[in-house]
């Protein structure tokens, strides 16, 4: 193995509300190896250089969604981004944009979780079934319609990427709209109408200005922009249906 270990400078945004009037950058010199992720760099800082640096992390394999941060200005998962790709330049790590900073790299996730809770993120069955009746049948094609959108790990990178969410925090936002679409598109579900009220509302899909950056930064290929777009179409159809068929009219 290489005896001369490379050292990379990691510039981290620090903010401890009890101590610091405003955020500032602190630079750490981190020795690294080829396979080391940005998260491992932060863990090195925490263990060896500065125990007071706070950040969220857990699985190390891009599935728990904890370690999102702005890495050189781009929303990324720390565990899935590698120091070698930044060397010999320094690297800047900041908390996810558009969220309030609680401390250092930790942002408040309450808004995201609150939105997730609002969209009825569960199956409201079309035809209730007992367990003894077994599973609902769902063809691979029907599954395919929801699989991509059900792959969201709630890492919130798409919110940090979304200019509209930055301007108007009332916007439901890409990740939660993708999940909403996931349930609406599920062959077992019947709550589409209730969810569409949220989709059609001002903070629903029409807030989206179709930048598409959300899909670009998604680490799981969920493509929330596609979900939002599909719902714009459905929302528009709903609108016209509403015009031609007043509420209360039969099918």
């Amino acid at each position: 193995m290489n005896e001369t270990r490379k050292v990379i400078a990691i510039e981290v945004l620090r903010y401890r509300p009890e101590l610091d009037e405003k955020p500032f950058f602190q630079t750490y010199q981190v020795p690294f190896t080829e396979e080391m992720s940005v998260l491992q760099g932060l863990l090195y800082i925490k263990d060896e250089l500065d125990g007071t640096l706070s950040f969220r992390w857990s699985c190390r394999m891009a599935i728990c969604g904890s370690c999102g941060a702005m890495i050189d200005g781009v929303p990324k998962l720390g565990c899935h981004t590698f120091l070698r790709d930044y060397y010999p330049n320094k690297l800047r790590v900041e908390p996810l944009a558009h969220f309030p900073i609680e401390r250092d790299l930790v942002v408040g996730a309450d808004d995201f979780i609150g939105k997730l809770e609002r969209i009825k993120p569960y199956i409201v069955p079309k035809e209730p079934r007992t367990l003894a009746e077994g599973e609902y049948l769902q063809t691979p094609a029907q599954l395919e319609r929801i699989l991509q959108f059900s792959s969201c790990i709630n890492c919130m990178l798409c919110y940090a990427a979304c200019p509209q969410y930055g301007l108007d925090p009332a916007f439901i936002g890409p990740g939660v709209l993708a999940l909403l679409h996931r349930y609406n598109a599920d062959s077992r579900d019947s709550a589409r109408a209730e969810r569409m009220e949220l989709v059609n509302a001002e903070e629903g899909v029409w807030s989206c200005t179709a930048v598409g950056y959300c899909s670009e930064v998604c680490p799981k290929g969920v493509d929330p922009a596609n979900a939002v777009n599909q719902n714009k179409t459905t929302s528009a159809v709903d609108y016209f249906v509403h015009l031609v068929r007043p509420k209360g009219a039969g099918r």
Partner: protein
Amino acid sequence: MHVFKSDVAIVGAGGAGLRAAIAVAEADPSLTVALISKVYPMRSHTVAAEGGAAGVVQAHDSLQHHFDDTVSGGDWLCEQDAVDYFVAHCTEEMVQLEHWGCPWSRKDDGHVDIRAFGGMKIERTWFAADKTGFHMLHTLFQTSIKYPSIKRFDEYFCCDLIVEDGRCQGALAIGIGTGEFTLIQAKAVIIATGGAGRVFRQNTNGGIVTGDGMALAYRHGVPLRDMEFVQYHPTCLPGSGLLITEACRGEGGIMVNKDGRRYLQDYGLGPADPWPRKKAMELGPRDRLCQAFWHEEQNGRTIATAQGEAVHLDLRHLGKKKLHQRLPQICEMAEAFLGVDPVDAPIPVRPAVHYTMGGIQVDIKTASPLPGLYAAGECSSIGIHGANRLGSNSLAELCVFGKVAGSEAARFATSTTAGNSTTIERQADAARQRAMKLVNRSKGSERISVLRNEMALSMERGCGIYRNGTDMQATCEKIDELKLRYRNVEVGDKSSVWNTEWLLAIELGYLLDVAQAIAYSALNRKESRGAHQRLDGFDQRDDANYLKHSLAQYADAGPPRIDYGRVAITRSQPGTRAYGAAGEQAERDRKHGEAIDE
């Protein structure tokens, strides 16, 4: 101090905790559930499970087969009554998840698909591509939102249990975002905090898997059972230990050494062909596969990589289409972490610590010996895994026994009254002061990371795939020493908001207690069984002396006391554990024997 009064408090909101919370809510919506988790529920480590969850569905399969696979897989250290309950309830729980929206992979006819798994005689592993734990966890979390009686305490770190009047009556938690303490009073408490893989160095576990609930119950006098049985998973990335699912082999992947030989045939798992074949070769149980790796490494037949020795997991013959459809996450991980595309090249893998078979001792109803305290999931030892867990039994366990824990805790809470608030609050205040001592005292002399690394290295040395008395003794002494040094651990961060250094110090305390229970339980078991393999003259299973559970009892100062408890054997007498051709022969003999008996 804030006080929240609940009926049932649940510590941990992974698969088992969420399933338990839903079970309480469904049993009685008037009961208030406090669901406490140090991370948002969907970050819990259930999320990282990949391969699948067991549940008998095929006509030629049976509960008896699932029972037999599990009990022999566990080297007969299983609680057979618990296994019976388990196999009988897996499938309905899998169907329940399906009703709740879990995107199980499907067959063309719309029915749920299943795949083969190690040590399982017949395909019965339900899966959602290779992200089964992820999908189960998100399904459970999102479904839990439906129930208004579940009050979540997200990012609340449990630092003690409240035991008053001889029963568990709540938990004390630190709001991570504020540093403030909340006493969560409860009539019943369920622990569902998962395993303790971070006790070891190379492991598949997330940073949060620090044995919190095990240590808390243990400190309050509840025995930790069978802790010496620590599962190594045979296919993990060298260095990081990240998990490469057993489903790779379930789908037909093979493992070869540096000479390109499918070396498992040299360890009683062959013959190599025809392949794929159940309960043979790469679809043998995890303990046997890890032991085979160890021998290959000793004999210089492994492959050197920058992160240590490895063997090759070869998936190339499965073809791009199948790999992308069935194992998309594995493809993604191999690419990101190794720069390897499994379509074109084999993946270097090696064993890493994956799962704790043992845990908080509970009975078949998930009740611990401490009244009012229940446990479910990896933190618990209900006894279904014995000395070696079969892949896909743990995700099923979360659901089956998470539900039981919820129903039982609800029943207990309904039949009891809340305790005396004054004495409970006094207790909570004492616990708060103990937790605060770590930050309040002046400078300590021991660094958290140094103690943690020394522990992990020593555990790997003494309690690895093969063990011997000398090394285990050294590990026991090392952990004793680290526990003493821990008294001077340094927490430089004195702030309240998101003081993760403080939490790391508390977690280190949990890890050390669990490590001590593992090491002493291992040292005292003078036989080889399942994942506990000794090379120092105790290399055989010894049913006469050790067909019993280890029970580690916490001691305030000094090492734990190791007691033993009997194993519930109902209808499967200990037999020879054989796989491959030997296993097939043993089965023929058994059938022949039964035919003669009749």
